[in-house]
């Protein structure tokens, strides 16, 4: 619900036609997949006997069991309050996910042995590179947005050229171009500065457009009213426009921060020992790269969740006016 209201409605997942349709769809899908051949077939062994020889009966029984479990699960979840619903669904999805990883038969002692180095070297470098880039990108974005909204043709031309160019090239290509291209001009930049430069320029371009759109979303009447009572350009911006634009700007900006965290992995190609580089490298000698890739994936995810939480905090702060 966008806004909570008091209009009464029947719960969708309790309508008989919906439950029946869901049951039929799940049953059909799992009947089509040859379930007895998977690990689930082993679980069904007491009912269907030898999975490989169970034939159509085995498939029928397996699909029926799964369809009943899933449908019951969803109907039950429909009865509880929304907070419990969210929690239960999260936990269920997480368990399914972990079960999926569990089937890889990972070598957990190996992961534990490598984890400290992945954090002290990899996570620190990743955070450092992304944090510096985010700060520079935000500054670039503010400048770019103001330039794009100004009536100065020169500023507008530079800003629009900048956003067009850096949004128009793949980030990986920018990393290569800056790392290999700048020395041609005589500036031999190290791998980390080159990576930071590429990330900042690229994300600055995206965020310029976000900031510009946010500022433009404020009704022009606000601007005219402010100017007509004698506020200057900068006072109007600071006191009238930006405070209203911020709640619009923050969700997509948070998105950019999360994307930046993961795109910082692209600088691994120029030899920066950040998380992605270590994930690809540490397990190579012993051919345990699945272990390292999954650990790094989990670390990236946890970092993103932290950013998501911070973002929702900030959003709640700026959304105070919408709470009744």
């Amino acid at each position, binding site marked *: 619900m966008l806004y909570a209201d008091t209009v009464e409605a029947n719960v969708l997942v309790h309508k008989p036609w919906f439950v029946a349709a869901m049951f039929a769809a799940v049953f059909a899908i799992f009947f089509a997949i040859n379930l007895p051949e998977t690990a689930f077939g082993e679980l069904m062994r007491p009912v269907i006997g030898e999975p490989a020889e169970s034939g159509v009966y085995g498939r029928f029984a397996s699909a029926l069991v799964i369809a009943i479990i899933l449908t019951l699960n969803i109907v039950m979840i429909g009865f509880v309050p929304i907070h419990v619903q969210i929690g239960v669904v999260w936990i269920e999805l997480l368990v399914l996910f972990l079960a999926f990883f569990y089937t890889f038969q990972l070598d957990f002692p190996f992961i534990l042995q490598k984890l400290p180095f992945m954090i002290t070297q990899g996570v620190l470098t990743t955070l450092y590179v992304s944090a510096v880039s985010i700060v520079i990108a935000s500054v670039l974005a503010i400048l770019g947005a103001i330039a794009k909204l100004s009536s100065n043709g020169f500023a507008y031309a530079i800003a629009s050229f900048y956003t067009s160019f850096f949004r128009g090239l793949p980030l990986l290509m920018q990393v290569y171009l800056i790392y290999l291209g700048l020395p041609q001009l005589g500036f031999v930049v190290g791998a980390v500065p080159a990576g930071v430069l590429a990330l900042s320029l690229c994300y600055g371009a995206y965020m310029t457009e976000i900031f510009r759109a946010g500022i433009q979303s404020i009704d022009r009447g606000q601007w005219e009213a402010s100017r007509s009572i004698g506020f200057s350009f900068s006072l109007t911006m600071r006191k009238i426009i930006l405070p209203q634009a911020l709640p619009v700007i923050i969700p997509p900006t948070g998105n950019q921060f999360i994307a930046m965290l993961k795109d910082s992995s692209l600088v691994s190609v120029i*030899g920066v020992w950040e998380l992605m580089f270590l994930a690809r490298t540490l397990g*190579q000698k012993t051919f345990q790269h699945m272990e390292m890739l999954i650990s790094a994936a989990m670390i990236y995810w946890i970092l993103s969740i932290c950013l998501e939480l911070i973002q929702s905090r900030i959003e709640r702060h700026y959304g105070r006016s919408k709470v009744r």
Partner: protein
Amino acid sequence: MKNSIRLIALATSLALSSFASPANAGAVLDRVMEAKTLKVATDANWAPQSFLNEKNELDGFDVDVAKEIGKRLGAEVEFITPAWDIITAGNWSGRWDMHVGSMTPTKARAEMFSFPGIYYYTPAAVGVHKDSKAATLADLEGKVFGATTSSTYEAYIKKDLTIDAEGAPPFEYQLNPGEIRSYETSNTALDDLRLGDGVRLDAVVSSLLSFNEAEKAGYPIKVIGDPVFYEPLSVAIERGDDEFAAKIAEAVKAMHADGTLSKLSQKWYSVDRTTVN
């Protein structure tokens, strides 16, 4: 007005050209000797030549060779690990002085690099899945091959390999691939091969050493036929500094002569790969 524009253009190009100084004779050597550090580029994904060991430090045959060369030059070795295609792209611009990462001297590479010291030879082999019905290389006619991108193995499959080094044994193209897939590292190719015979790949061309390592790690693969070619592997530096090249050549020659290289080869491969055999 026109004149002033021309003047600005001239000044800019002058300023730029004074920044960009190509490697002069002895320049790299001077830099190394002055800083007492030898910056070496190598791959971090190429076990057992170079990889991260249990202590999370670079280790392996190439790494040991680089350290030994540094010792003989009287300089501390510092490692840098850019992606392979960044190393082979050239224009190192002083970021690193030397590359010890099992590079094969080829004609194309010789335009940019000089190869002062061949320090060992690897047999390149063809590997297939354990269940493959192919028994000889001829059985792989028209199949899907995988190899590391811009490697000698890929060049070999494409019949475009010219090894440009003294003492490189002659070879002939024995494969007629149907399709060639390029990978960033040979391990990714092996991961695709392990999925099953013909699932994504029918065969991989790579170093015999990596096949042996993978088999040891339990990969369901096997090597068929004899090695398709032997590649000499050399230290690489950028063209232009003959004094530096001479210094490295001297060090590598001495390491061949006093048995240091053979000893290192025994340590990492359990065989002496420093001569063609």
